[in-house]
């Protein structure tokens, strides 16, 4: 790809970007949120057309006007959010978008044969007749990769492929990628995890603000150098930690269970406590009960068993989020755009979500718009949210700034207990360091913090104690500093016994 330019309205998403991937290599592409990685990959895969610039595949100029063109040229893409039809089987999904003629039986035989070959060659065994809805996340990803390979992909783009995997599953993925590269395929790995870049890639390209700032041989660089290239200044990767002994117990959870509407046990007899002045991290692969735990603690879902005490006083089934907030419980939800903010609102309206009952925001039934804007300005100043524009649409802020808005709203109301879900998901490196420092400062100020994150690094960096969840159960508890990623990874995968 040479001299790629792309503008969206007034913003330049890509500026004179050159990007070259050698055959048979794994090439990492890193950059902060909004640096232009996704745009560049969208152009390569034909979702967007570049305003100018050229693309050559195997040395020949190529015009890629649609994903169909990209597939014809041997380019395959595995999206971060899987593009699979849940009600279909694996075979049906692989056949999606293939030219089959009116009847599909013949094409289906061909696909089954190819699936068998791939299973043989790469150990990519998947039951062709399994329904997508019944597969695990790791298996879904294999289906996506197989889908691309069946369509003849020689260049494979993977967008944040390990976000939903355990460390062990990620390692298996990397072995597979190595094997594919060894056979002459080219792999482009888009990620923000520098450790993965160091572990698996041959080359790495760094983007910042729509420009390609460096392409390096992986062996000749370091995570620190890459991080600095990404943000354009030096960053602190690890926050200070001088944990003082924790204080009184703030949150007590006893035998908490949840059976969902379909009769599945989502939360199984969870018991733990969180004390003032400590961060308790909950590690686990997404979908193992952490979200349900957060929802119940925040008053958004009713448990089917067990009880919760806040400062020693039980939470009653009728206590809604408003009642819990009055008792000093604040909640940073896992998905900011689904719950934490209203994309259609301006920042000032989003900044008071859940806080409108406070008397500061107007007398009686009225909502004081000026007070709302003043409040938002104060949040923007203290959390360095840019741009400082309370009347700008929430959706127009970058992911990191949106997240800071939610964090500022919840953290600056002196919580007794802060529930935090995925505080840095989709947030750039610079903002991550800032958010981590703020969480630690809140703990040092005496708040109890329950941190749910699927990023093991984050759990390890921040937590004083770590709980590991698997299949709805708390399968283990470790003190920070007495465990490592490997042990936690095994526990997350349910392979480590319950023994302490």
């Amino acid at each position, binding site marked *: 790809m040479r001299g790629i330019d792309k503008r969206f309205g007034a913003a330049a998403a890509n500026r004179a970007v050159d990007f070259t991937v050698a055959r048979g290599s794994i090439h990492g592409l890193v950059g902060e949120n909004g640096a232009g990685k996704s745009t560049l990959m969208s152009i390569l895969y034909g979702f967007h057309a570049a305003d100018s610039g050229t693309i050559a595949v195997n040395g020949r100029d190529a015009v890629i006007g649609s994903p169909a063109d990209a597939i014809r040229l041997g380019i395959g893409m595995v999206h971060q959010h899987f593009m699979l039809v849940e009600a279909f089987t694996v075979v049906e999904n692989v056949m999606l978008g293939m030219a089959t003629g009116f009847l599909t039986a013949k094409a289906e035989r061909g696909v089954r044969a190819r699936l068998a070959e791939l299973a043989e060659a790469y150990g990519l065994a998947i039951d062709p007749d399994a329904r997508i809805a019944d597969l695990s996340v790791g298996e879904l990803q294999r289906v996506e990769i197989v889908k691309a390979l069946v369509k003849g992909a020689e260049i494979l783009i993977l967008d944040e492929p390990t976000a939903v995997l355990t460390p062990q599953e990620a390692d298996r993925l990397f072995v597979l990628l190595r094997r594919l590269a060894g056979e002459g395929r080219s792999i482009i790995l888009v990620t923000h995890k520098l450790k993965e870049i160091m572990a698996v890639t041959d080359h790495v390209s760094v983007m910042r603000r729509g420009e390609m700032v460096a392409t390096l041989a992986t062996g000749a660089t370091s995570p620190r150098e890459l991080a600095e290239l990404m943000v354009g200044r030096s960053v602190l990767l690890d926050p200070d930690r001088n944990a003082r002994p924790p204080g009184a117990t703030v949150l007590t959870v006893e035998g908490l269970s949840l059976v969902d509407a379909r009769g599945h046990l989502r939360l199984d007899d969870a018991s733990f406590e969180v004390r003032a002045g400590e961060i308790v991290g909950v590690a686990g692969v997404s979908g193992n009960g952490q979200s349900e735990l957060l929802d119940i603690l925040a008053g958004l879902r009713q448990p089917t068993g067990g009880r919760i005490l806040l400062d020693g006083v039980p939470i009653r089934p009728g206590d809604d989020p408003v009642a819990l907030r009055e008792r000093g419980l604040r909640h940073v939800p896992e998905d900011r755009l689904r719950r934490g903010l*209203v994309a259609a609102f301006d920042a000032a309206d989003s900044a008071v979500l*859940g806080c409108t009952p406070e008397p500061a925001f107007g007398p009686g039934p009225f909502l004081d718009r000026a007070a709302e804007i003043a409040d938002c300005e104060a949040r923007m100043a203290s959390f360095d949210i840019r741009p400082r524009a309370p009347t700008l649409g929430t959706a127009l802020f970058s992911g990191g700034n949106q997240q800071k808005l939610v964090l500022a709203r919840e953290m600056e109301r002196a919580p007794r207990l802060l529930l935090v879900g995925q505080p840095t998901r989709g947030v750039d490196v610079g903002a991550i360091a800032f958010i981590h420092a703020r969480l630690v400062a809140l703990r040092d100020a005496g708040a109890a913090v329950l941190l749910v994150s699927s990023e093991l690094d984050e759990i390890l960096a921040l937590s004083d104690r770590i709980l590991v969840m698997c299949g709805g159960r708390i399968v283990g508890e470790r003190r920070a500093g007495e465990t490592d990623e490997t042990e936690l990874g095994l526990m997350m995968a349910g392979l480590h016994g319950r023994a302490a």
Partner: protein
Amino acid sequence: MTFSPRWLGLVLPLANVAIALAAAGLLVLAIGENPVEAMGIAFRGALGSGNGIGYTLHYATSFVFTGLAVAVAFHAGHFNIGGEGQALMGGLGAALVALALPDLPWPILLPLAILGAALGGAAWAAVPGWLQAYRGSHIVITTIMFNFIAGALLVYLLAGPLRMAGSMALETAAFAPAARLPSLADLAARFGVDLPRTPLNLSFAMALVACLAVWVLIWRTRLGYAIRTVGANAEAAAYAGISPARVTVIALALSGALAGLMATNEILGVQGRLINEFAAGAGFVGIAVALMGRGHPAGILAAALLFGVLAQGGAELSFEKPAITRDMIVVIQGLVILFSGALEGMVRHGGLVLAQRLGRKAVPA
């Protein structure tokens, strides 16, 4: 996020109307009449005389109420198609008050009758709201069905329990004068101003107040914030401790109350008795008005005036040009709805492209 300059929000509705009128012009041409002449007749009929203006504003009054009704429900994320039935029940509420308490003095009876109109509409809309919130029955379906039920109920009542003794028409006895909203001509006469006699009455002022009240409600109250949150993101509302189910019922009741107030114009202001089918489609025009006005009271006021012009101008037009029937006016209204609602995205896209071109010329890269 696409970049969209502020002026586009004002220019687009006008462009939509212009395209709709152009399309209507082609239709007029097709039936052998001169579209320019026809449009001239329509606009002169609607705005060319004090009499015409009075009628135009009278129609617009009803459309403001029903348009605001649709907008309030829309801010809560619901499509209230039941304005027609809610207006009819508003009329019933006003009539019950006026007929039951004929001896009260006007400062008490008139506000009570107006309240009756609001409550009638609110009650009729709250039921579909409750069914949606707690039983999951889709509000579009239930409000449409409730229109039919309201129509049938009104016929039953007007043919039976509420029928004026000795009358063959579907109507109640006349209300006491204390229950009637004064016409603007009468009010003006008190101050020595001579206005032509038209159906325009005090409910026009009520409609203007309602515009302001809805703006305050939606953008300056905690309830309005809750309504907007539920409409934009029900999950975020639940997170904030706002019950989407409760807010749905409240928003629908408010929406129905506004639709019910439409009856003050026609029943308390003009007829002075409850008659059959008095809403005459105003409930449905309200949907178009709210769409064109983009849910904002100022836009709704402007759109209601436009539809008032169409209603009055169309009546004049069909009178002067027998080839152009009243049905033609319905077609023109339909075209406006088509272009400002369904095809709005098409014009918007063109507008955005144009805005980008202009923007680029203004700021050379």
